[in-house]
Structure formats: structure tokens, C-alpha cells
């Protein structure tokens, strides 16, 4: 049947409308946080209770293409970290993550009244991925002698007493690629055994469940939905929560097309069966 071979462009139009219209029409959907996201939130809270005012490391391992998915997640996590009173050290392991990391740090720091070098420090990007992590494991000051402005880490209040990775009370990676599974866990967490959690794009989230189950990751935020759940937990809805409207509608549209396709498929089988019978 011809309906089985719907022109892709019709599907594209419906998907486009499914994304565009909910962005313009305001309606709320209840967001229920899932256990991996709750676990990440609880991990931050626990560390803040045990080591108040300690320093944590945020690693930005995403680029321009995944910015719409990862920036809301970074904002939510940063808000939570600053609210808990952590000192934040941020690094980039992807070169095109530098501008994104800097902008989200500056934005949230200004919102929460935090000062650069005192409450947070941005160390910029260094090539080498796993080599950088191994260097940081021994001494952060070897891996990043200066911050992104060229100031020595020994002079910054946030970093002067931080040396091996284990001096950080928590490490969190925002990943759009291999950084959690192939960099941070085998060369970081497994070797130095620090508390670790991560956020990733939605397509990568199923990849990381084994590490959640083994305890190598204490929690995980998966995609825009994970970011929306985290915004709900911290009580500060933002772009991720808004993104749940188009995402929900689009998922329903795709499911509707799948049901339609299967309906057409079974009808065509029946009609071809009748024709041969």
C-alpha cells in the first residue's frame, strides 16, 4: 500500500510542528525525577554535608552541537553547587567547550553572587584527554599550571591547596562523547577512586547504566530530560523544563507514526493474503 511509504517530508513536517507549537504554547507537565538523577542530587548533598565548603571539579566535555542539551544541565548543576557552598574548579577536555563553559560559569556565578578566583576558577582547555586526567591525578598544578587568564594556580584561593584529584571532594563530567566511559572512569575513577557522577546526552545514557550499577558513577543525568528532572529537584525550572513540552509532544508524534505504520503494515498483509488466497 502507498500509505506504507509515506514521504519522509510529511513526517518531518509533523515533527517540526510537534517541536515548534509546544514552544509557543505554554502548558505544564509534572516532572518526576528518576532514581539516577535523584542519586546524583543526593550525592552532591551528602558531600556538602560531610565536607562543607570543599572544592569540586566540573569537567565540560561537550561542544557546540550538543549545547542545547548540555547547557541547561550545566546551569542546573552549577546552581546546585553554588547553593551548597562548594568551591568550583572547571576544566574543558573538548576544545570547543571552552566558550560554552565560560559563558555558563559567568552567567550562573553572576546570578548567585559568586566571585571568580574566590568561589570558582576556570582553567580552560588542555589537549591530551586521558593524559590530562592522569596528570591531574598526580597534581592538578602540573596538568593546569595556570588558569584561563594566565594566573598561576598557586595564587588562586580556590586552587592553591588542591593537588591530586583526590583533593576534590567530588568530580562531575558533562559528556557528549567518550569522556565518561573511556576517559574519566578507566583513567580517573578506577585509578584514584574519587566520588564521581556525570551528565550526558540522551543517546548516551543507556551506555552508562553499567557504571551506575557497579557504583563507579554515583548518579547520572541523561539528556534534556535528566536536566529537567534536576531543575525540578533544585526547585529552579529553566530551559530544560521548557524543553520537556516539545519533547513530550514529539515523542507522541513518533509513536503515533509507528502505530500508523504498523496498522498499515498489517492491513497490507491482510489484503495481500486475501489477494493470493
Amino acid at each position: 500500500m502507498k500509505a506504507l511509504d509515506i514521504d519522509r517530508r510529511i513526517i518531518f513536517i509533523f515533527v517540526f510542528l510537534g517541536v515548534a507549537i509546544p514552544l509557543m504554547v505554554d502548558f505544564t507537565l509534572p516532572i518526576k525525577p528518576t532514581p539516577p538523577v535523584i542519586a546524583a542530587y543526593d550525592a552532591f548533598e551528602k558531600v556538602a554535608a560531610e565536607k562543607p565548603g570543599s572544592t569540586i571539579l566540573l569537567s565540560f566535555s561537550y561542544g557546540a552541537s550538543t549545547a542545547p542539551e548540555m547547557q541547561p544541565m550545566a546551569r542546573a548543576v552549577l546552581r546546585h553547587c553554588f547553593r551548597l557552598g562548594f568551591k568550583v574548579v572547571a576544566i574543558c577536555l573538548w576544545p570547543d567547550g571552552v566558550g560554552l563553559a565560560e559563558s555558563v560559569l559567568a552567567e550562573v556565578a553572576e546570578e548567585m553572587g559568586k566571585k571568580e578566583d574566590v568561589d570558582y576558577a576556570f582553567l580552560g582547555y588542555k589537549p591530551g584527554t586521558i593524559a590530562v586526567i592522569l596528570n591531574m591525578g598526580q597534581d592538578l598544578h602540573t596538568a593546569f599550571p595556570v588558569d584561563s587568564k594566565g594566573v598561576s594556580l598557586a595564587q588562586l584561593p580556590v586552587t592553591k591547596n588542591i593537588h591530586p584529584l583526590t583533593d576534590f571532594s567530588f568530580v562531575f563530567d558533562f559528556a557528549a562523547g567518550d569522556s565518561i566511559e573511556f576517559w574519566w572512569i578507566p583513567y580517573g575513577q578506577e585509578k584514584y577512586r574519587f566520588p564521581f557522577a556525570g551528565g550526558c546526552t540522551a543517546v548516551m545514557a543507556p551506555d552508562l547504566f553499567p557504571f551506575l550499577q557497579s557504583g563507579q558513577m554515583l548518579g547520572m543525568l541523561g539528556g534534556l530530560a535528566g536536566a529537567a528532572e534536576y531543575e525540578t529537584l533544585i526547585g529552579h525550572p529553566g530551559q530544560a523544563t521548557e524543553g520537556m513540552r516539545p519533547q513530550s509532544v514529539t515523542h507522541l508524534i513518533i509513536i503515533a507514526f509507528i502505530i500508523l505504520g504498523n496498522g498499515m503494515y498489517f492491513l497490507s498483509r491482510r489484503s495481500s493474503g486475501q489477494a493470493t488466497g
Partner: protein
Amino acid sequence: MLFLTRTLPLVIAFSCGVLAIAIYYVPHSAAQGMEEKLTLWLRIVAAFAYFLGLYSLLNLHWNRIRQHQAGWGYSVVAAVGFGLMFFFAVINDGDGPFAPQAKQGAYQWMFDNVQVACASTMFSLLAFFISSAAYRTFRARSPEATILLVAAVVVMLGRVPIGAYISDLIPEAMLWLLSVPNLAAKRGILLGVSLGAIGTALRIIFGIERSYLGGGEE
């Protein structure tokens, strides 16, 4: 010449491979110091790879422009884009190339409004492509395909708030699918891939695998 293109790289691969493995098991400060040195060298090599990539790219597009190959106009666009970004990175909003990167300026504007916009647009194409792929392939042709179809629908509903709105069972079913069958499959593949990686690494260390040197058999 054969020494430089074949023998020396194999010697380096062998010695560095064995050293890196040994360092993993030796906690002595001498070994840790060596690891620090090796990783610093690795970072230097990684940084130089960017220069190699830059040269290759510019050379490729220059040849296309020079020879007027098909699509050479796009090579002009690529070269101009590169030139512009490089120029404004050097200008650095008036601070020069040796100052920290400025947070304003033409370079940052181009990154935010061209690079981020184009890259995220390309990434967003996936939404359309997955829709058409899902329509075409998620057909209940067999019991396995039906299970795949049902699992896909459950996960799609469970990942968005509307699933919990319909029923609390949907997010729970989604989590079960991800935490049990998905985890088992992923772990199995991960174990197999890791063993494959060990095998390939061994072949490289012992010089049995030489394809990375470029052609030629053992």
C-alpha cells in the same frame, strides 16, 4: 629509511607499551614520575596533531581551489571561514593573541552565532531522521521485532514527563528496561570489546599488527 619507517616505530611502540603496563602495577615514586613524564609527552604530541590537522585541511582545500575540482566554491568558503576566525582570534577584541581569550568580540560572536548555531542545527537533524527511520523500521514483522517495538515505545514514553502523567508504571518499566536487559547487553558488548582491545594492543606492542604504520604486511 626502513629503520625510520618500520623498525624505530616498532621499537618505540614496544618499549612505551611495556613501560605503560608496568607502571600500572608499580606504585614506586620512580614509576609514578615516569608516568607523569610519559603523559606530558603524550599531551605535547596531541597538541602537535592539531597542526598536522590544520595543514592537511588547508592543503586539501587549496588543491581543490587550484585544480577547480567539483565543489571548489565550497572550499573557498571553508578557507575564508578559517581565515576570518583565525584573524579575529589573533585580534582578540583588541587584546592581541597573547592575552586570555576575550569574552566579547567578533571571534566570540562568530562562535556563538555561527559555530554553535550550525553545529546544533546539524545535530537536530537527528530528530527528523530518527522519526523517519522509526516509522520505516519499527514494524511488528516477527516476535523479536514486536518486542523491540514495544520496548522502544515504553522507553520513548518513559523518558518524557507525559509517560509518568499517563501511568507511573511507564517510567518504572523504562527504568527496568535500561537497568536490566540494556545493562546486560551493554556489559556483554563492553567485555567483548575490551578483550578485543587487549588483543589489538598486544599485537601492536609486539609488532604483529603494523597497519597503523601505513600499508604493508608483516
